[in-house]
């Protein structure tokens, strides 16, 4: 019991630390990559290659004045950033980073490279991410500002709409693997990664992941040109930073989930499993940033039509095709 608690705690602390560091440095990567695409230099003053920029930004945000607008609902206004960040972080609990490890022979019994494996892992991530909407909706409402309210409402409508197609798009993977556990899903991809039989499901999943994380070209909730900055316009200091961190943590979770479901998770030749996992996740994150730098934003009606009239029927078609393929295969 004690050993279990200690290993679990150590794993949680390590994963949490790495995740927070990754979130901080994603901002640096994003600014560098977008700068490169736009033929600029990006951050380059703080430390070598601007590597200390995220830390400088963090200190700056911590020292900023913490404002609560007049007429705001104080309790909910304070609660909203936490409600946004917590789900983004706890969904990482079921992501497998590798099979097992002995830490280069340091441990006598192999250690699982994940915090936990529950038999409904995929659904757990969906359940937790469906709670993430609250942070955004409540932030928009409690700010007592029309831009924030519009941003919050847009975002909740968008997230609810795309959650549906996202859920349907992964059922194909679950059908092939015959399990909802993420570890079993990775194990089932021994011969071929699920991106091959599930290419349509993968495309739908990726579009939905972009919309779920409120990233360009689906970043309507924070469309600067029309809504100033959307749901977090009234937030300052660390509370603003928490929304920012939640967005990046969600991006990392979505990439990790895509890797696990479609790209064989930690599987790959020659390199150690964790390295493969991180490489694949980084490739997804790069695409996220790349899309942001290249694609213009959708209009709101286009976004809704795309979600309900294109992605949802396609996801259902994918389901039927997968079923037919599985019957034909066996």
């Amino acid at each position, binding site marked *: 019991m004690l050993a279990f608690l200690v290993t679990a705690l150590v794993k949680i602390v390590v994963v949490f630390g790495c995740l927070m560091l990754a979130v901080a440095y994603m901002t640096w990567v994003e600014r560098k990559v977008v700068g490169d695409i736009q033929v600029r230099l990006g951050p380059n003053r703080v430390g070598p290659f601007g590597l200390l920029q995220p830390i400088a930004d963090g200190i700056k945000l911590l020292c900023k004045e913490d404002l609560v607008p007049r007429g705001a*609902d104080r309790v*909910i206004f304070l609660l909203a950033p936490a409600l946004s960040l917590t789900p983004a972080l706890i969904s990482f609990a079921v992501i497998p980073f590798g099979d097992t490890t002995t830490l280069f022979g340091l441990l006598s019994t192999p250690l699982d490279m994940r915090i936990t494996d*529950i*038999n*409904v892992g995929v*659904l*757990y991530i*969906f*359940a*937790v991410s*469906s*709670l993430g*909407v*609250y942070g955004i*909706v*409540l932030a928009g*409402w409690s700010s007592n500002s029309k831009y924030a*309210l519009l941003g*919050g*409402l847009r975002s*909740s*409508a968008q997230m*609810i709409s795309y*959650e549906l197609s996202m859920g349907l798009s992964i059922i194909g993977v679950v059908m092939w693997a015959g*399990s*909802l556990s993420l570890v079993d899903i990775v194990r089932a991809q021994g011969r071929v990664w699920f991106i091959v039989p599930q290419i349509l499901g993968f495309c739908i999943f990726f579009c939905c992941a972009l919309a779920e994380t409120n990233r360009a070209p689906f970043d309507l909730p924070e469309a600067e040109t029309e809504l100033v900055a959307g749901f977090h316009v009234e937030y300052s200091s660390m509370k603003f930073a928490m929304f920012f961190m939640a967005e990046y943590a969600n991006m990392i979770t979505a990439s990790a989930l895509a890797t696990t479901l479609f790209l064989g998770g930690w599987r790959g030749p020659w390199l150690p499993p964790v390295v493969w996992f991180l490489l694949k996740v980084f490739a997804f994150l790069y695409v996220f940033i790349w899309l942001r730098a290249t694609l213009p934003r959708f209009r709101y009606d286009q976004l809704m039509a795309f979600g309900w009239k294109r992605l949802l029927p396609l996801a259902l078609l994918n389901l039927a095709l997968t079923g037919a393929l599985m019957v034909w295969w066996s």
Partner: protein
Amino acid sequence: MEVVLFAVLAFVAILAALLVVAHRHPVYSALSLVVTMLCIAFLFLLLRSEFLWVIQITVYAGAVMVLFLFVIMLLDLRREERPWHLPEGRLQVGLGVLLALALLAELAVVAVAVRAPASAGAFPPAVVAARGNAQLLGRLLYTEYVLPFELTSVILLVAIVGAIVMAKKRFE
């Protein structure tokens, strides 16, 4: 351990349920309902049914309550925010008390008369753990309970069609 967890969850669930009724502000009422839903979800987890746990969170605490909040915010119910007082109508109070007493009586009858069976049912925790509870539930839904299951989906379909018809009418 489990008893303590159950006690805490039950207490929070009831407290939040009371707040749903007692709180003056509709948004806080809705949020209290979310807390109640979450507590119920974790009661499912205590019963080792992980599948119902996540579905309860996704469907009730997630989707349904977000839509509730959505509607509350769109309607701007701030006018509803007023000091709490007893409703004026005699009939209203009388009927309310009567219904509350009936519900209480029902609960009491269930608590006294219904006893848990002494022997384990067809699906004790060991069987469920071995065969996976999502798998078992799915099999049961599509074999033994397929008729009620399909009927429920037809009812939902009817509700969707009804909602669309009512929404369309307003535009014409």
